């Protein structure tokens, strides 16, 4: 499916707005092509492609609003979708929290689209999977994996003159390699906007190596350990901080950022001073859209600086009520790191546990952001700077806030993918002391 250019999207959306009779009207238009190949037991199990356009029209009369959607683009359909959104708005109860749409905005030019990814062919996908399968076969192991790529555009226009347009591409790959006797398991995941950076062979080699090396794991006692979390393991913990930066929840007293006495932790030091976390839509290694779904610009924002909470996310309603800038939630996050490689972090560790990946993360207590979950696909005991032997998986109970206070060292930042949310991040591997493992698991 061919994507609409900026001019084509502009012309189409102008036409839609011309049908509007509401006080306010906003139009979102998007088109995506996404394809995937799934494999298991060293063979392809399913593959598919979905292409679709979607036009969403929001109309408002005073504080009453309605939304309608359509995927046909002839004139009659365009008028129909506008009328339908207006009918729904007239029927809707008044929303006292409705905020008038934004006027024209200025956005930075996004860098999220890579032609090579948009041009990927079924043969390239099949070859990428074949390379991964070959590694598994050569290692006498069994692979299960998933490769997906997408390319698309999104555009937005409203009756106050706002217009935004963005194109993007993305590819995500993950693979689990298990030894034939199921005693060892390894995992690797990669995410890129540019598919030419994806090397399914080298990723599968890492997974296969972890599988072979993690077989015949020994049980060690649960307890508090120094851990080295690889970026994929850190991502699923830290994102629980990123997802809970909402100012309204904090102000209402129901967030880990709420404090006794009815105030919040905004402006306070919450974690180790080496922790700086920000988002930047123009970062070349992790580009994201330069505007969000309601038309607000996405800018470079520092969320935690030297351990201090610098910014919270706001809905436009809550920001207006509080008289502050309405900063939207970011599409990705970046944490500053150090200069050491993972191997150097291991070399500098007297006793510790190397964690490849964490799994089934759930919030146990939103007040302290206590999380539980398990290690998976490669957990190793480190002594005197060397990996000594594989160990059985652990269940942990730990808060990422406590964890970032127990920071020992940060390594070199790399791009990783959360297996829980599928969001991409730039994160360093991190050495943490007193990480709480509470029980053993027999799972491989």
């Amino acid at each position, binding site marked *: 499916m061919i994507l609409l250019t900026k001019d084509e999207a502009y012309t189409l959306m102008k036409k839609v707005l011309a049908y509007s009779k509401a006080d306010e009207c906003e139009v979102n238009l998007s088109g995506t092509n996404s394809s995937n190949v799934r494999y298991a037991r060293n063979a392809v199990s399913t593959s598919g492609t979905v292409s679709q356009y979607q036009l969403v029209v929001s109309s408002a009369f005073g504080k009453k609003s309605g939304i309608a959607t359509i995927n046909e683009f002839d004139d009659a359909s365009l008028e129909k979708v506008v009328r339908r959104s207006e009918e729904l708005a007239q029927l809707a109860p008044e929303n006292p929290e409705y905020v008038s749409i934004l006027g024209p905005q200025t956005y930075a030019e996004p860098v999220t689209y890579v032609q090579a990814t948009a041009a990927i062919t079924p043969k390239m996908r099949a070859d990428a999977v074949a390379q991964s399968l070959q590694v598994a076969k050569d290692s006498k192991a069994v692979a299960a994996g998933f490769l997906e790529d997408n390319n698309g555009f999104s555009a937005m226009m409203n009756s106050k003159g706002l217009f935004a347009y963005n194109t993007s591409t993305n590819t995500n790959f993950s693979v689990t390699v298990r030894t034939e006797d199921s005693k060892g398991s390894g995992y690797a995941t990669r995410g890129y906007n540019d598919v030419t950076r994806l090397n399914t062979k080298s990723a599968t080699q890492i997974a296969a190596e972890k599988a072979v090396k993690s077989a015949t794991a020994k049980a060690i006692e649960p307890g508090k350990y120094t851990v080295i979390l690889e970026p994929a393991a850190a991502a699923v913990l830290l994102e629980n901080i990123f997802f809970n930066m909402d100012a309204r929840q904090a102000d209402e007293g129901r967030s880990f950022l709420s404090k006794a006495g009815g105030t919040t932790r905004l402006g306070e030091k919450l974690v180790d001073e080496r922790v700086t976390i920000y988002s930047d839509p123009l970062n070349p290694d992790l580009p994201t859209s330069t505007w969000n779904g309601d038309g607000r610009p996405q800018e470079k924002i520092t969320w935690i600086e030297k351990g201090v909470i610098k910014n919270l996310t706001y809905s436009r309603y809550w920001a207006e009520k509080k008289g502050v800038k309405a900063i939207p939630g970011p599409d990705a996050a970046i944490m500053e790191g150090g200069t050491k490689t993972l191997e150097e972090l291991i070399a500098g560790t007297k006793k510790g546990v190397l964690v490849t990946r964490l799994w089934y993360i759930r919030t146990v207590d939103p007040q302290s952001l206590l999380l539980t979950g398990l290690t998976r696909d490669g957990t190793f005991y480190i002594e005197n700077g060397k990996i000594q032997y594989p160990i059985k998986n652990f269940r942990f109970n730990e808060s990422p806030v406590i964890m970032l206070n127990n920071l020992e060292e940060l390594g070199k930042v790399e791009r990783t993918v959360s297996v829980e949310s599928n969001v991409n991040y730039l994160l360093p591997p991190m050495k943490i002391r007193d990480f709480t493992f*509470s*029980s053993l698991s027999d799972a491989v």
Partner: protein
Amino acid sequence: MRRRDFVQLTGLGLGGLMLPLGANSNPVSLEALLDSPLLASQKKVLADVALNTAKGLGATYTDVRIGRYLNQFISTRENKVQNIVNTESFGVGVRVIAKGTWGFAATNDVTPDGIKKATERAVAIAKANSKFQKEPVKLAPVQGYGEVTWNTPIQKNSFEVPVSEKVDLLLRTNSGALKNGASFANSNLFQVNEQKYFASSDGSYIDQDVHRIWPTFTVSVIDRASGKFKSRDAMSAPMGMGYEYLVPKNEDKLSGPAGMVLYRNSYDIVEDASIAAKQAKEMITAKSVEPGKYDLVLEPNHLGLTIHESIGHPLELDRILGYEANYAGTSFASIDKLKSGTFNYGSKQINIFADKTQVGSLGAVGYDDEGVKCKRWDLIKDGILVNFEAIRDQVHILGQNESHGCCYAQSWNDVQFQRMPNVSLAPGKDPYSSEQMIKAVEKGIYIAGRGSYSIDQQRYNFQFGGTTFYEIKNGQITGMLNDVAYQSNTQEFWNSCVKVCDEKDYRMFGSFFDGKGQPSQVSAVSHGSSTSRFNAVNVINTGRTI
């Protein structure tokens, strides 16, 4: 469950709950939800286009699903309606076997031409993928049923109830909570209608109308002075029912400990929210649990999730075989363990059955998404593992020649695959109430409702929280507890079960958005049980200060 594929309904109260809107799901007007665009006879003509086209192209098997999927979601907080969303998704999915290999294609162009093209694509994909195939697909035989229908036995179609009536009920729910001391109240109502037409080259033309409903809320109490906050979620269960679930009947109410009210086949949401507010208030000052071994008395709306995670999932044959290894994981429950005929999954009290016909359950349908008539079968008998959950193309691996009928696709544009049926714990045969059970416990904890849950990828080690916790000392409930979670190992846990209450206590828990597969698909499933006792389970304290 992948968050990217989901729209977050509200940031509040429903923290982890994401609302799935199918890829081709479009918001529509209220009236449109009650339209019936195609008659069964018209769908049969369209389905035959797929069946004939595929046959002509050399397919040895074809099924076609013409589906119309309707959803209505209403969300409110305090005295405000936050969102009313009506969605419709209509299209057709065609699955074929050609050259011994599966192929699938879908389109929302539900015309003879559109269906023909999709069928051609499905056959082409099957032929292209056949080079990766190690051995040809082998289907368990199924009878052709001719033209048949099945409908969820609802009394009141929730889509026909005026939105104003539903909004009013949710706002009264919030108001009931606020009057009883809640600081905040969020309530939501999810309604689903799947209008599914299935036809296959085996000679079945199956027209089904499936309904599901889930009313739920989160009530929060904030203690500004201490900075503490506590929440209590609804004790409702999502059900395979119509709006009648929200018309409370006294005979469906059970008295729980400490003034709790528990619900069976109808639900009093306003009453529950009022109780919830009082309980959330009590949680602010309740004592923190002393970690250690406790006898646990688990009520069905809690135990259902433990059944789901530690029995329902590990017994899925595709997972056992490794098809989910890269996402949901594999399973400790190997084919060898099943074949041994001696694997002690649980104590003698444990009788677990799968049942796709259970009235009121989320998984109930007449026929599954590959045209197999649904049934009930045993999974664990007197504690021994006796069967798995399998569909047509895998059941032969178990040496069985009849599918269990638990194949499902979340929409017409997703390929169907093995999903968990309703999996339930049979009630105890001797008369025994939850009051009697509590009286017999010396040192224990009574746990109601679902909470935090996590289990490893082979389903050995798990940790569960709950909604409310009460301490039991010498047969008496002595007060509420905070910071409770229990950790165990699946086999050890089910072997620690010493008693299951009788059928008077039996009721269903449900999971509305169970995720599996890549790309991820959701399905809805129920788990029935009676209150049960598990001895000497490890309880940890989850309280932390940051």
